[in-house]
C-alpha cells in the first residue's frame, strides 16, 4: 500500500468511525461509494445517526460514488490537496447525486496526521477550515447579514472573514468590506488557546493581547448559536479519559444560641431599638453587643440604646453577582454595603448593613475628622428579631 504524506488510503477509512459526527448525520439516510484507483472500493452506510464502512467490490445502491486516485484522496482528506481544485481539474469525480455527496463533508471530523502535537499553524488551518461545516444554517434567522473578521498577528497569523448572509456561511482569507466585528489578537497562538479553552477572553482583553472593533456583543451572543463548538482533533488521537467529578451539596443544619447579650440586641430590633453595650474598663461601645470586651477581656453588662440614626463610616458598591447565603439566589447588582456609626457611638464602633438601592451613588464615607452621610433605618413591618428587621438604611434628609 502506498503512503502519501505518511498516510495510507486505508487509514482514512479506518478512522472514519472515530471521526464520525452524529450531529452532522441528521437527516442523512444513504449509501456512499468510494472507488480509489489501485486501492479498492469502500461503501459507507449512514442511517439513524450511525455509520458503517466496509471494503467491498459491490457499490450497488450507492446514491453517489467518489472516484479518485490514492494520492488525491489522501491529499484532500489531509488538507494537502485543495478539494475544489481537484474536483474542477477532474482528479476527483463524483458519479450520482452530487448534492447528496456534499453532505459527507459534515459527517466527519478532519483527519489529522498522527503527530505529537499540532502546531499553531495546523490548528489555525483546521479551525478556519471547519467553520463552514460547523455552521448551523437552520439557526440563522431570516435576514441575518453579518460578517466576523479575524486579524491574527504573530509568525503564524493571518486574516479571515466569515460571512453569514441568506442563511449561508462563507469564508475568505482576507478582511473584506466593513465587518460587523473584527477580532484582533497580537499573537495567533493566543487565539488558538482561546478557542481550545486554555485562556479566557477576558484576561486576554484585559492584558491587551486581544481586542475587538465593532459589535463584539453581537458576535458573543450569535456565534455559540450559529456554530457547533470547535473540537480539538488531537483529542481523538489520544484515548479519551473520562474525568469523573462528583458534585455535592453539603447542607448542615445548625442551631446557634444567641445568648442573653446578642439576644437583647435582636429583641431590640423587634422593638425598633438598637442596643450597644459599653465596656466598664475602656468605655468602648460594642455593636452588635458582645459578652466580653474584645480589647480588655472583661464582661460587658451595661446596655445603651444608640441611634437609630447615624453616619456612614465605611461604604462599598458591589457589582459582582454573589449568591445570597440566605436564599442561594444571586442578588441583583449593584448594591451598597455600609458600616454605620450610630449617634451615641464614636471611633470605629460601627455596625454593617445596606443602603437603599437608589441612593448608593450619593453616600459619602466619613471618619474621625470628616462626617459621613447621615442615614436612618427603614424598618420591616413584621419584625422577628433578626438583622433584616431593618430593611436597609436611607439618607436622612
Amino acid at each position, binding site marked *: 500500500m502506498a503512503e502519501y504524506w505518511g498516510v495510507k488510503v486505508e487509514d482514512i477509512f479506518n478512522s472514519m468511525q472515530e471521526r464520525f459526527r452524529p450531529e452532522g448525520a441528521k437527516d442523512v439516510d444513504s449509501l456512499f461509494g468510494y472507488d480509489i484507483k489501485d486501492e479498492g472500493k469502500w461503501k459507507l452506510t449512514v442511517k439513524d445517526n450511525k455509520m458503517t464502512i466496509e471494503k467491498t467490490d459491490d457499490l450497488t445502491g450507492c446514491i453517489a460514488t467518489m472516484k479518485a486516485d490514492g494520492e488525491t484522496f489522501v491529499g484532500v482528506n489531509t488538507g494537502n490537496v485543495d478539494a475544489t481544485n481537484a474536483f474542477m481539474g477532474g482528479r476527483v469525480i463524483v458519479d450520482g447525486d452530487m448534492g447528496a455527496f456534499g453532505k459527507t463533508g459534515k459527517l466527519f471530523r478532519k483527519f489529522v496526521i498522527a503527530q505529537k502535537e499540532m502546531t499553531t499553524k495546523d490548528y489555525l488551518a483546521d479551525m478556519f477550515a471547519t467553520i463552514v461545516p460547523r455552521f448551523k444554517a437552520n439557526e440563522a434567522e431570516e435576514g441575518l447579514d453579518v460578517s466576523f473578521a479575524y486579524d491574527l498577528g504573530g509568525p503564524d497569523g493571518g486574516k479571515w472573514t466569515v460571512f453569514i448572509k441568506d442563511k449561508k456561511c462563507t469564508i475568505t482569507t482576507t478582511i473584506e468590506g466593513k465587518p460587523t466585528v473584527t477580532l484582533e489578537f497580537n499573537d495567533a497562538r493566543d487565539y488558538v488557546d482561546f478557542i481550545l479553552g486554555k485562556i479566557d477572553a477576558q484576561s486576554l482583553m*484585559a492584558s491587551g493581547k486581544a481586542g475587538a472593533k465593532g459589535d463584539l456583543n453581537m458576535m458573543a451572543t450569535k456565534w455559540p448559536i450559529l456554530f457547533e463548538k470547535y473540537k480539538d482533533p488531537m483529542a481523538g488521537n489520544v484515548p479519551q479519559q473520562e474525568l469523573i467529578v462528583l458534585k455535592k451539596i453539603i447542607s448542615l443544619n445548625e442551631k446557634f444560641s444567641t445568648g442573653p447579650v446578642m439576644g437583647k440586641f435582636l429583641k431590640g430590633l423587634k422593638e425598633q431599638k438598637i442596643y450597644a453595650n459599653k465596656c466598664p474598663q475602656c468605655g468602648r461601645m*460594642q455593636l452588635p453587643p458582645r459578652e466580653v470586651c*474584645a480589647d480588655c477581656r472583661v464582661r460587658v453588662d451595661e446596655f445603651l440604646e444608640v441611634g437609630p440614626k447615624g453616619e456612614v463610616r465605611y461604604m*462599598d458598591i458591589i457589582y459582582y453577582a454573589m449568591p445570597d*447565603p440566605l436564599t442561594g439566589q444571586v442578588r441583583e447588582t449593584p448594591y451598597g454595603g455600609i458600616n454605620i456609626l450610630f449617634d451615641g457611638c464614636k471611633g470605629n464602633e460601627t455596625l454593617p448593613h445596606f443602603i437603599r438601592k437608589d441612593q448608593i451613588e450619593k453616600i459619602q464615607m466619613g471618619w474621625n475628622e470628616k462626617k459621613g452621610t447621615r442615614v436612618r433605618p427603614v424598618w420591616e413591618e413584621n419584625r422577628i428579631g433578626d438583622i433584616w428587621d431593618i430593611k436597609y438604611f436611607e439618607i436622612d434628609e
Partner: protein
Amino acid sequence: MDRAAIIGVGMTKIEKSKVRETFADMAWEAVNKALADAGMSIDDIDNVVTTSSDFWDGRTISCMAVGDASGAADKNTSCVEGDGTYGAFYGYTRALSGSYKTTLVTGHSKGSQCISSLITNASFDPICERGLGMDMITACAMQANAYMNRTGLRPEDMAMVSVKNHGNALKNPMAQLPMNITVSDVIKSEMIADPLHKLDCSPVSDGCCAVIIAHESVATKFKQKPVWIRGLSLCTDSFFFGDRDLARSNALVEAAKNAYKMAGIKDPKKEIDIVELYDAFTYQELLWLEEMGLADYGKAAKLLEAGEFNINGPLPVNPSGGLLSGHPVIAAGLYRIAEVVMQLRGDAGEHQVKKAKTGIAHGVNGLCGQSHCVWILDKER
C-alpha cells in the same frame, strides 16, 4: 534560645483548576519536591503539621485528605486551620520543643472546588452579620475605601501593584496568572466591588506547598543549605469591624515589631532585602508594607511608582508575582515562605533578585487581615 532553619521547600504549580488531581496528588508532589530539595527521605521526618480548612476542603478533619501523601502514618501529626504560615509557626515551635528535630509542614487548598464567596461569608458571625451576606471581597472593598479615604490613595496607585506583580509572574513558572498589563488595563477591568476591579483581586486557585523545618542540631546534616529563622511573630486583631480601625492594621504593626525585635533588626527599611507578602488585593500590598514599617503610612504608593519595589529595585516585593498571580487559600502564606527561602539561597531562577540576605515572608488569616504572621528569614545564621 535554640535556633531552627528551613532546609527544604516544594510547591506545585498554582493553577486555576487542578481538575485532574486530588488533594493527595497535590500533597504528594509538593512533599516529594520538598524532600528532594532537602536531600531527605520521609523517614527523616519526625512529625507532620498540615494546614487546611474544613470549609474549603468540604470535609471535617480536613488534614486527613493529605495525611497519607505527607507520610503522617505512625507520626505525630496535627492540623492548623488558617494560613500556611501559621502551620509553619506551629512546626517551628515543635522543632524548638526538643521533642522533634524535623517538622514537615504542608498547606493545601482547591478554590476551584468551592464557591469562595459562600465560604468567606461563613467566616462572619453566624448570628448577626453572616445573614447580611458579606464576603471577603465586599469586606475588603470596604477596607480599601477606608484606606483610600484616609490616605488619598487613588485607584491608579493600587493598579500599579497589579501591573508589577502580574509582570513579575512572567518569570515565575509556578504562577497562575503571568500578565503583561498596564494601569489602564486594571482600571478598565470589570468592577467587582468598588473600588476593586477584577485585576485588583487575586484569582481563585489550586495548589499545595510544603516546607521542612529543622532544629539547629540537625539543620546542616542534610544536603540543602539551611535558611535560618531569625524572627517570627503572629498577632491578631479583634474580629468585629466595629472593634477595629479598618484603614489600619494594628495586628501587623505588632507582629512586625515583635519579629524585628526577635531578629535584632533596628531599621527594617535598610536591613530587609526582599519581601513576599499577602497581596490578596492590590491595596493590601501597600497597606501591609506600611504597617510592617517598610514605608510610611500612606506613602508606599509613591515608592512603588518610583520603582523601589520592582524586582530589580532596592526592596523587591513579591518578585514571584504574589497572590495576585495565584492565590491558593491556606497554602498562600507557605508559598511566600518557600519563595523567600529560594531567593535567599539564590535558587529562584528567572525571578531571582540581586542581593538577598534577609527577607520577610508574610501570611494573613481572617477578614481584612484580622491576623498576621511575619517571618524574618536569613541566609546566615
